[in-house]
């Protein structure tokens, strides 16, 4: 009876604790399996380092500043490219809403381009722009802008007409209609598209850095393969995983859930 009550009404912190425990368990299992494979010596240690060796390399990458420089470079590219994609994507999305025929054509093109592999933009970017940050930004923007465009377009087109009627009746015009009604009404759709754009931009950035950069997390991966430094490769991979995990789960998922809850939409 008592236990039944306790399990049926868990305290607020319990789900988070169990979640942390699950993460700890799966991490331990992963590290254990890795160590086991290392002990079996299928590969020489320089090709397949142990968790401890990788951790040592990781610390060394931190102390030498290589990781900090890579993180910083990758970070500003990510934020810059993402900002351009969101800004331009919302802008083009609004043009699509304003000009219906353009919107119809563009949305089917955008749907196709959304599934276009980001890596396939790299040769084009290298020849047109070159092996520069701008080339990398181009690849990122082309990979993520279409999600923003489409979600802006769909978000605004799907605003219940009654909201616009009511706000016009109360005197809202042009800019304030856009800012105070259309933008917030489209926010749930928009944030979904922006979250997707972040993830696409991230994928594209790492790919582009492997092929186009000499500094950055992707470049560490590339140089690692050139110099057969598997420890550095794995360390960089873990950092890349961490960035994606943290930004999506802690920033975008929370933002999206927060908006959906406030708007009264079920998840």
């Amino acid at each position, binding site marked *: 009876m008592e236990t039944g009550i306790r399990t049926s009404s868990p305290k607020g912190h319990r789900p988070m604790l169990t979640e942390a425990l699950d993460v700890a368990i799966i991490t331990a299992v992963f590290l254990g399996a890795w160590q086991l494979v290392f002990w079996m010596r299928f590969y020489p240690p320089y090709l397949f380092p142990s968790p401890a060796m990788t951790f040592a390399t990781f610390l060394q990458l931190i102390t030498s500043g290589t990781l900090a420089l890579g993180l910083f470079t990758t970070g500003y590219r990510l934020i810059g490219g993402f900002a351009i994609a969101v800004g331009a994507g919302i802008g083009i999305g609004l043009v699509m809403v304003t000009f219906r025929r353009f919107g119809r054509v563009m949305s089917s093109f955008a749907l196709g381009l959304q599934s276009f592999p980001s890596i396939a933009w790299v040769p084009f970017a290298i020849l047109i722009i070159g092996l520069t940050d701008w080339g990398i930004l181009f690849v990122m923007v082309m990979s993520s802008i279409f999600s923003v465009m489409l979600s802006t377009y769909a978000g605004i087109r799907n605003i219940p007409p009654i909201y616009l009627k009511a706000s016009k*009746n109360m*005197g*809202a015009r042009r800019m304030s209609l856009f800012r105070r009604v259309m933008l917030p009404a489209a926010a749930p759709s928009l944030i979904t598209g922006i979250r997707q754009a972040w993830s696409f931009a991230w994928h594209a950035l790492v790919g582009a850095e492997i092929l186009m950069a000499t500094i950055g997390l992707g470049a560490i991966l590339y140089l690692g393969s050139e110099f057969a430094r598997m420890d550095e490769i794995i360390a960089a991979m873990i950092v890349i995983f961490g960035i994606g995990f943290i930004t999506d789960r802690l920033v975008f998922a929370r933002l999206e859930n927060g908006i959906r809850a*406030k*708007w*009264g939409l079920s998840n």
Partner: protein
Amino acid sequence: MQPQFERPRLATYAPPLEGERILRVEKLRKTHIIRNGGSKKHGDLVVLDDVSFEVGEGEFLTIIGPSGCGKSTLLDILAGLEPYDSGDVIVSGHRVNSNSPDIIIIFQEDALFPWLTVRGNVEFGLKEQGVSAAERRAKADYYIQMVGLTRFAESYVHQLSGGMKKRVAIARGLAMDPRILLMDEPFGALDAKTRGNLQRQIQEIHASTGKTIIFVTHDVREAVCLGDRVMLFSHGPGKIRRQFVVDLPRPRRAEDLALHDLIGQVLNEFSGEAEFAENGDGDSDQ
């Protein structure tokens, strides 16, 4: 044995010769263009034809008619949200336009903004009018209190019941201090008890604010209960069929016996409009 009391009679409305008229609608005509699939024009559907009426300052006018008779279109036109083909809509001597929120409409559907709190919703139009933050808040709180939702001023719309949402919509409309408050079947989707409460509350608000209210419904009971005057529309095309004065003391309740007699007479008047009678019966279950 018939019970011995004087049966109230519905007096056919005759417009007064003088007095304050806040709204004058003259020979209003509205057509919708029917399009066949693409952009090819197929024909015109006359929605409103030769609609003329006047509304006095502070009057509570109810409009009933079968669905599709153009009642909602009429309200949209009055609110300046919809153009019309010919005729005139004059509010206090000026032709209606959408740039002055003199006429506020409350819709049947939920038109509250889910991203704003109750207070945010009520303040929305005031902010649009450039009212200062302090004054906005004072006005919003005043009208939120009038509809009895002070405790919920900080709540978001999805946390409210259907009846509470309607009260927020009414507060939002009143806060704009419109010359005329239009209500488009506002209580249509609510259960009988909630609707009864809101019918009482809107009469109290009408009495205390003296607002002119035009209230559209397809429920005869509601129309007779609320209106100083009931305007019957027939459809295809939408026309005013008859108008009645309801001269009974307030506050009224939809269950009042005196009201039942009038409701019967109005229903009789409309026995020809099958769809209408059906709607009226369907809505008057207790």
